[in-house]
């Protein structure tokens, strides 16, 4: 999911006219799944007529992912056998049990439990993202509302947005002199674009009807902002936030590899230096799961705020 979001961000041309909304695609996918299920139902009924419906539905929901995971494990096991130095699933599992039985130990600044590493990465993401939201969302509103500002800022955004966030890391190191704020700065830079662009597009897409209502009801600028613009833009804004956090989580790992300190990215690098490949595999899973959770939480929030336009 996170990677899909990333490709969407990058595949998007430099014009701020297209919003980064994935809903339709997701819905289409959901519909597709639904129709496939419907098509399957009779076949299954014929084959296993006596199976209770609830049970078969459960099986259909759970079995395919389980088969997929099993397949992954199988391929992994084969690779582990064929390649020397690559840990088998079992070895990795045993290492994971040890690591996760003491997630919060501290043995000096460079040797801390995985829990601390995850938390400090999340903290950097939160701080960098927080600053980005504080700057990006108001800026997006202003750009969407005022044409002049839009034409002024658009070329700058088009120029800077395609730059890999890691290219900004040296600038951060130069300005802040320390690794930690430099990593946060990188997160700030990479998560600000989706928020600016999505918010601005959201403002531009507020239906003219609603603006006419505002004019006819003679609403004050404040009421327009709180009762019309903000609610109308909120879904776009949340999409921007979701993409931002997804990108930030991708970038933080790379940034920490370069800056060191405590963090999941640094931890991966450190384990590579220790040649503990099974730990790297564990880290990959951890990073994936955390990213997935972030995405899920934000999707839930976005769902709560999506209105039905009818």
């Amino acid at each position, binding site marked *: 999911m996170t990677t899909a979001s990333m490709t969407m961000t990058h595949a998007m041309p430099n014009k701020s006219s297209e919003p980064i909304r994935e809903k339709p695609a997701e819905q289409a996918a959901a519909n597709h799944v639904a129709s496939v299920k419907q098509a399957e139902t009779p076949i299954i009924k014929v084959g296993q007529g006596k199976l209770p419906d609830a049970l078969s539905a459960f099986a259909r929901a759970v079995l395919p992912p389980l088969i997929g995971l099993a397949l992954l494990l199988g391929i992994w096991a084969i690779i582990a056998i064929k390649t020397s130095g690559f840990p088998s699933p079992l070895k990795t599992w045993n290492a994971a049990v040890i690591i996760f039985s003491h997630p919060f130990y501290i043995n000096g600044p460079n040797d801390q439990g995985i829990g601390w590493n995850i938390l400090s990465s999340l903290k950097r993401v939160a701080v960098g993202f927080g600053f980005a939201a504080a700057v990006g969302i108001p800026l997006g509103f202003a750009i969407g509302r005022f044409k002049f500002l839009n034409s002024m800022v658009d070329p700058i955004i088009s120029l800077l947005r395609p730059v890999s966030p890691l290219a900004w890391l040296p600038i951060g190191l130069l300005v802040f002199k320390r690794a930690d704020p430099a990593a946060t700065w990188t997160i700030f830079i990479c998560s600000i674009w989706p928020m600016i662009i999505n918010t601005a597009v959201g403002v531009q897409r507020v239906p003219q009807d*609603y603006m006419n209502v505002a*004019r*006819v009801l*003679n609403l004050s600028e404040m009421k327009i902002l709180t009762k*019309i613009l903000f609610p109308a833009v909120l879904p776009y804004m949340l999409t921007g936030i979701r993409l931002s956090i997804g990108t930030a989580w991708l970038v933080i790992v790379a940034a920490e590899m370069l800056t060191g300190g405590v963090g999941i990215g640094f931890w991966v690098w450190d384990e590579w230096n220790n040649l503990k490949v099974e730990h790297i595999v564990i880290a990959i899973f951890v990073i994936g799961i955390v990213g997935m959770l972030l995405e899920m939480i934000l999707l839930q929030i976005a769902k709560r705020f999506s209105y*039905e336009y009818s």
Partner: protein
Amino acid sequence: MKPLVQVQDVGMRFDTKKGSFVALRDINLDISEGEVVTLIGHSGCGKSTLLNLIAGLTLPSDGGLICNGREIAGPGPERGVVFQNHSLLPWLSCFDNVMLGVERVFGTKEGKAKLKERTKAALEMVHMEHAMHKYPHEVSGGMKQRVGIARAFAMEPKILLMDEPFGALDALTRASLQDELIGVMAKTGATVVMVTHDVDEAVLLSDRVVMMTNGPAATIGEILEVKLDKPRDRLKLAHDPQFAEYRAAILEFLYQKQLKHAA
């Protein structure tokens, strides 16, 4: 008596990619207080354009419009608007949608309780009190249109502007809303300008039917005075020869004098 709204030599040009497009020319129309005027004409002739001019949502390229003795330079609370597609805000309940306008008009003079009372009264008038805390997507199209009407009425405008308020509804719902509107107009003595496509609706509701010629450069072709007693009853009127005559006059205008050739 001085008319409430005066439309004087109004023309409207739009600047399009293909050059300027004259939508309306030489429109002259006076609307008195308490009068119900419908605008009828073929699609694209400029009915909405004229209504938006009176609403102040757009400004004329020629001539001028006066409401209540003052030139129309933008929308104002003395002119309520019911939009064709209801235009309720989806994130506010029906009640809050109506309340939004009420607050703006009476908020400085009256307390919260009084404002809520007004809102409730407006929703009761269109028989929506049972669903007033629902959201727009939870109620039917006819109910949304009712809330739109309540929102406009609740602001106690001097004149109500409606752009095909029942256009998107089925015939049965439309009839019941027309009856409701007749009741509301009788109760409030409202001045109404309404755009419609429906010949029966025009005769049933209005004091005058303004028939517009085909665009481009449309103008007022004829004005028909409807002198039927009020309040009107659709069932009785169905067999009324005078009603049939009015109806025929409009049909004749639309399908003989202004026959729209298939574009």
